[in-house]
Structure formats: structure tokens, C-alpha cells
């Protein structure tokens, strides 16, 4: 993978409660922004294949999407388009597939686009209608999966993390404080307000030990990236961003098959493979956009990717080591906590942020670039058994 693929442009729309926009409108706006994001311009006819990230359409009554859905939305009937669905890392995997299309040598330019309508259903129904990653809700097994949802899986981890690693609900709240603070200055974020530890702990309990403000919001959004062969990238921009590693990691979807509840093997495997592909180490990374669907999840991610040993993330957080001006900024964009989590758009939105940060175009949320390497991560799907990690760099 390393040295073969470049990102030449990205585009997204401000995430939010976009009741006035359909899936089509959002996807089209992200696509247009992405085309405009190519410095020297691109003719849409130069795009030779596309991958369409779409998770929930059929599950929440908006029709199951296929590649033809995106073809129609962006007026690209002459190219092959494949729909990708792989749980919460759908955006990561859509990007990965578009990378593979280029790296294989088959296509010179490819498009990865993800779009998701989440708010047309109320929050609880939306998560439950889609199974919440657990097969939760009704009609499933009478004993195994009763009464759960997306938050309950991470709440089971959060309880065990506190018991085994010594972190507290205050530490979880500190993740929300940091990410909401970062999100205030991101024009693409859904929530742009500060929170305090007290406000998080006083917010309603969604699934003990997780409070409302420990959870990312339900949000609509779309995001896209254009990829091309590294050796022709300069035709489109003088500042391409190169793909070092792109990987998806698996773990059991059933919670009763898990080896423990303090780490996620899906993330560990995704990160290990991506670092191997890129020939780089966690210590080489300047900043990371990590999947903070829940606050405890972010602490696990920091450890599972290898940024610090297990049980250390909450201590480093207390010391301010993940602040935007610190040694390893985490979620300088505000993450899912501030942006929300429009599933298939989430990973590609993070890719947009990594692209802008590496090109030092992130305005007041700009982090210090030393090695010129940024990392993007998602984790989720049934039992949080799917994770995606993409590592991008200023140099091939």
C-alpha cells in the first residue's frame, strides 16, 4: 500500500440535524465540496470507480442503497460503484476499498463517499431499529440479547475498565470535556459548546455508567475523499497526502466470545496491520482522530492502538497530554462527541480532518506537525467486532 495511493481532495458537509436534506442532497453536497477540494481541479470524468459507504438506509426505512444509488446522486452512470457496509467503521472501509482500487493498478482515480441519515428516527428507536450493534431489541434470542443497544455494549466495557484499570466516571467525563472543547472551533461539528465534568456527570444516565454527555449524538452527515495513483498526484495538487497503511481488524461479534472487557482486539488488529503496512510506529504519529462514540471507548482506543500501555490513557488525559497543543493531540476536530456519528460519513469525515491537519489548513484547530503523519480510527459493528485504521502522511 505505502507509496502507491494519494489523497488529492476531500470534502464534507457540516454534520447536524439536517431534516431539510435527504441522503441525496447530503451526498451531492459532499461530492461537490470534494471536487472543489482538488487544488488544480478535476474533471468528474477522470473518476474511474467509486465506493459508497451506507449503513442504515434499509434498516430505518429509507430503502437499502446499492452502488446505483450513488451513481444516480452524482451523475456517474458509466463507472462501477460498490456499496460498503461494515458497521461503524463503514467510512474507514469505504476509504480502504477506494485505496485498494488504486493500489491494484486497475483505476487511476477513485472516489470514496459516505452518507447517513440518522435523525429521521428518534435516537433510541434509531439505535434499536438498527440493532445497536448487538442484535438487540425484539425478535432475537429470548435470553442472550435482551434489552441492549449500542450504549449497553460500551457500558459493559466501561464498568470493567473502572474495576480493572482504575479509571473513573470523572475520567470518562474528561474525555467529553476535551472533545467538546475542540469541537467548538470546528465548523463541521454538530455540537459546538463546552461541557464541564459536573455537567457530564449530572446529565441523564443513558446506560450506567455512561451518561448522556458520554455518548455521541445521533447526527446526519456526508463526507468524501478522492484518491489517485501517487505518481500522478501532483497533476491535481502540489500538496497531496499519501496513504501509508489502511486496514480493517476483526473480533467476535458475540460478547460471550470476548476474551476480556478492557480492550478491543478489532482495534488492536486493525492498528497492527496498518502500522506494518506503513512501516511506521505509534510513536511516529503526530495526532489522531479516534472513534469516541462513547467516552470510555476513546480511552480504550488510545491504548489499543498502542499510543500508551493499557490502563495509562486516563492518567495521561488528566495530565493534558491529549490536548490540541500537547505531544499527542487526540480528536483535534472534536471527534464524534462534537460531530456526531453519521455512521458511513464518520470515518470519511475523520479522513477530511487528517487531510486538512497534515496540509496545515485546519485554522484555529491546527495541531503541530512534526513527522507529518496522522491516524484515523473507527470501531463498531456487531459487538464492536470491526475496526478500521488509516494512516496518512505528507510524504510517500
Amino acid at each position, binding site marked *: 500500500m505505502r507509496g502507491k495511493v494519494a489523497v488529492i481532495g476531500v470534502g464534507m458537509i457540516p454534520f447536524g440535524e439536517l431534516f431539510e436534506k435527504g441522503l441525496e442532497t447530503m451526498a451531492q453536497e459532499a461530492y461537490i465540496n470534494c471536487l472543489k477540494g482538488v487544488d488544480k481541479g478535476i474533471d468528474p470524468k477522470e473518476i474511474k470507480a467509486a465506493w459508497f459507504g451506507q449503513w442504515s438506509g434499509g434498516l430505518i426505512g429509507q430503502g437499502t442503497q446499492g452502488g446505483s444509488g450513488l451513481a444516480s446522486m452524482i451523475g456517474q452512470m458509466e463507472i462501477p460503484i460498490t456499496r460498503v457496509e461494515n458497521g461503524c467503521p463503514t467510512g474507514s472501509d469505504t476509504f480502504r476499498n477506494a485505496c485498494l482500487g488504486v493500489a491494484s493498478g486497475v483505476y487511476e482515480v477513485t472516489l470514496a463517499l459516505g452518507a447517513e441519515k440518522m435523525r429521521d428516527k428518534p435516537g433510541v428507536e434509531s439505535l434499536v431499529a438498527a440493532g445497536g450493534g448487538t442484535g438487540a431489541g425484539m425478535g432475537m434470542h*429470548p435470553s442472550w440479547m435482551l434489552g441492549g443497544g449500542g450504549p449497553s455494549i460500551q457500558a459493559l466495557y466501561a464498568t470493567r475498565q473502572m474495576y480493572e484499570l482504575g479509571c473513573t466516571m470523572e475520567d470518562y467525563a474528561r474525555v467529553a470535556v476535551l472533545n467538546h472543547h475542540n469541537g467548538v472551533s470546528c465548523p463541521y461539528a454538530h455540537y459546538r459548546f463546552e461541557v464541564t465534568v459536573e455537567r457530564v456527570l449530572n446529565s441523564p444516565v443513558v446506560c450506567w455508567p455512561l451518561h448522556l454527555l458520554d455518548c455521541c449524538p445521533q447526527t446526519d452527515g456526508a463526507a468524501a475523499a478522492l484518491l489517485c495513483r501517487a505518481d500522478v498526484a501532483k497533476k491535481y495538487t502540489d500538496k497531496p497526502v499519501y496513504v501509508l497503511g489502511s486496514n480493517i481488524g476483526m473480533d467476535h461479534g458475540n460478547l460471550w*466470545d470476548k476474551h476480556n472487557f478492557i480492550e478491543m482486539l478489532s482495534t488492536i488488529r486493525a492498528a497492527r496491520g496498518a502500522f506494518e503496512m506503513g512501516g511506521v510506529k505509534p510513536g511516529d504519529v503526530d495526532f489522531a482522530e479516534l472513534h469516541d462514540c462513547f467516552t470510555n471507548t476513546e480511552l480504550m482506543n488510545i491504548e489499543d492502538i498502542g499510543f500508551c500501555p493499557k490502563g495509562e490513557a486516563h492518567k495521561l488525559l488528566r495530565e493534558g497530554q491529549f490536548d490540541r497543543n500537547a505531544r499527542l493531540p487526540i480528536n483535534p476536530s472534536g471527534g464524534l462527541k462534537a460531530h456526531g456519528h453519521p455512521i458511513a460519513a464518520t470515518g470519511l469525515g475523520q479522513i477530511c480532518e487528517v487531510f486538512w491537519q497534515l496540509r496545515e489548513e485546519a485554522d484555529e484547530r491546527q495541531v503541530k506537525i512534526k513527522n507529518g503523519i496522522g491516524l484515523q480510527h473507527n470501531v463498531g459493528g456487531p459487538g464492536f467486532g470491526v475496526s478500521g485504521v488509516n494512516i496518512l502522511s505528507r510524504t510517500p
Partner: protein
Amino acid sequence: MSAPAPASPLFWRFNPEVYRLIGTKCKDCGHITYPRRKICPLCGSLNLEEHKLSRRGTVQTYCINWTVPPGLEPPVPIIVVDLEGGGKYQGVITEVTQAEEVKIGGKVEMVLRKVWTDRGINIYGYKFRLVEEALR
């Protein structure tokens, strides 16, 4: 238009996993899982045997869900249990509403309970009950 009546849940009784708790154990790596498999999900071995899960175990982790699926009354306490003799089980705890009542490492056992009602038909399944140490 009214929804069609559900199929009788009674057929579940003939499924070995649901009430008789039959799973599989890998003879190579020892991993215990359910529903029954022909291939071990952990190591890929085809060398599996049927394994009857214990109804007793200890709490590996738990949470108290206040945003439950429609049709259930919150709170629903959810636990993952380390079963005696190996394997884990995911389920709900009955007769508990507060997080403080549950302890990691605490002993629990399965009891048969009505778990919900689907258009007039009762659906039964196992729930976990905290085991009083003094009674043991």
C-alpha cells in the same frame, strides 16, 4: 392493517441452545461458545464437541440500561457472566434496579422468567438472579 400474529414460540423448546443450554467446546483450544458451531470461532478448529453450559457463574461485567428497546420497562440491568466450568453468557439480571446491588465477581444463577410478550404471546427465557452468599 394489523400485524400478523407471531409464530408460536413453543418451537424454541426443541432448539437445544435456548433452554437446555447446549453449546460447543473446542477440543483444541478449549473455547466454549453458543449457538453450536462446526468451526471454532477462536482458532478455526473443526474438532468440537457438545458442551452443556452451567447455569451458575460470576459477574464479569454489568451495566444498567435506561434506554431500552420499545416494549421493555427501564431499567434493564445487563450482565456478562463467567460460567462455572467455562464459557461466558450474556443476559439480564432480574430483581435488580440499582448499579450498587451488583458486584463484579458476585455469584449469579439462571432462572426461567417471562422475558416479554409479543402480541399476546408470552416469551420465556433465562434471566440471572443474584445468589445470596448466606444461603450457600
